[in-house]
């Protein structure tokens, strides 16, 4: 092989490498761009309508300027709290069963959890409508919390299972060999060792349901006022944003942007919370 052909082959390889590298770079930028655009647009549109009153005042009737989404912000937190009360204990319990005890039920349960994760959330909403709203004869915070809780369960189950699977078998045996019961070993050794990971899964599940709209449309429904009790309809940021965004009123549309910005801020704060919790803490598992 002459020197020149070797050189041209080298150039060809070099070119191919640069091309492929360039393509992956483009793909990376394309992944980041939507996020940057959405955030930038959200801030530019929402920030101007965001003021102190937005967090402390109820919505004003059409035509009156001002007002806020205080009830929707509190409502979102209430709904998420209700959902967590249901989703977190059941999810963690099921995740522990899958990995720690895993009888003959674990394969179907794991499959069911995976199916449920992929289930369109509006279907979960319909389910909640049938089993909670209809029997209770009305939309309610409970129904909304129930729908979101159903969405949380499989998410928490699967992350819990993955996290406790990372706990080395030797630790369980070390505890059992000390004459510790199986149950105490699970709670005090397995769960504690995997606590940061489980907390991460819980927060991510919370962030996920905080942004759900569809299952709330016909469960929590929405409310222009404060909700006095869990059996009343309750406002949420997502539904409020939806209602305001499709309205023909410029003032409402501006407020929808502000609401979307607040919602994004909450979810972003949760994600940052996850990063903070897991900083260096998952190390004992590796």
């Amino acid at each position, binding site marked *: 092989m002459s020197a020149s052909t070797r050189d041209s082959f080298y150039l060809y390889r070099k070119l191919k490498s640069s091309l492929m590298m360039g393509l992956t770079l483009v793909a990376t930028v394309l992944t980041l761009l939507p996020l940057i655009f959405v955030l930038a647009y959200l801030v530019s549109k929402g920030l101007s309508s965001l003021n102190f009153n937005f967090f402390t005042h109820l919505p004003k009737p059409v035509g009156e300027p001002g007002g806020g989404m205080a009830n929707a912000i509190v409502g979102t937190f209430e709904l998420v709290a209700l959902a967590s009360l249901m989703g977190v204990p059941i999810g963690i319990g099921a995740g522990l069963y899958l990995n720690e005890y895993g009888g003959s039920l674990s394969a179907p349960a794991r499959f069911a959890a995976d199916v449920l994760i992929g289930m369109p959330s509006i279907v979960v909403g319909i389910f909640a409508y049938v089993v909670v709203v209809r029997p209770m004869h009305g939309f309610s915070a409970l129904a909304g919390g129930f729908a979101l809780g159903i969405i949380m369960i499989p998410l928490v189950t699967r992350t819990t299972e993955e996290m406790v699977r990372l706990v080395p078998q030797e*630790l369980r045996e*070390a*505890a059992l060999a*000390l*004459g*510790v019961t199986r149950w105490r070993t699970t709670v*005090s050794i397995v769960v504690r060792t995997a606590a940061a990971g489980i907390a991460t899964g819980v927060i991510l599940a919370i962030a996920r349901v905080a942004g759900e709209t569809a299952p709330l449309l016909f469960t929590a429904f929405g409310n222009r006022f404060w909700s006095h009790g869990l059996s009343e309809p309750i406002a949420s940021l997502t539904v409020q944003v939806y209602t305001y965004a499709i309205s023909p009123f410029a003032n409402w549309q501006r407020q929808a942007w502000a609401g979307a910005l607040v919602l994004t801020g909450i979810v972003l704060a949760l994600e940052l919370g996850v990063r903070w919790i897991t900083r260096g803490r998952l190390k*004992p598992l590796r």
Partner: protein
Amino acid sequence: MISLPASKSPESAVKVPAAEKLKVADLSAYYRGKTALRSINLDILANHVTAIIGPSGCGKSTLVRCLNRMHEVQAGNHAEGQVWLDGEDIYAPGVDPVQVRRRIGMVFQKATPFPTMSIEDNVTAGLRLNRRRLGRAERDRIVERSLRRAALWDEVKDVLRQPGTSLSGGQQQRLCIARALAVEPEVLLMDEPCSALDPISTARIEELLLELKASYTIVLVTHNMQQAARASDYTAFLLNGDLIEFGETNQIFTNPGRQETEEYITGRFG
């Protein structure tokens, strides 16, 4: 107290006055239907170190894990036969394995301090996780006594609040020994406790065994024949799930009764 049946195995007729702490009778163990141990008969004497040697996969670990009912922890495993602890069969129906493990402690091949706990919390883990309330003074006393017995006190007495995982490998293993001793077991099972340690840490643990046997009955699984020769009083040689030979360590290593034993200890296989 149940009277003990006479041992069936000729090896157990060792002429030593010491009492049997553990008596293994016709013990077989299975992994998902695969036989790992075939009718083992073995007497383990109180206040002595009994070594279990043999090539990889011969069933050493399985045997020692059967002695405190850890073998059955993994799904699909089971054991048949009897293991008499002071005349009580730990495999009798109605015996709670959790109670057995409080009397027969265990140290594993890999040091496993609990990563979420400090050194002192690791020592008292067995007691606290069994819901025993410890006063401050009592806790301090147990921590110091256990760490002293494990020959670790002088090295860690100023850093008791640091995580157990911050110690070196040899120190972690002694921490695990201290943790096992804190529960006040009568028997201590050690499953290749030195195989991940350097020679100096190994020597410290072997020294420790000599001190501990004054108060405990020790069963030491090792793939290191020099270690068995140095640290044990009795040696059992296992091969493919069968107990080939059992006797005083000195006799096993200088004048083995069986050809397989001789071939193994002279390094012809394994």
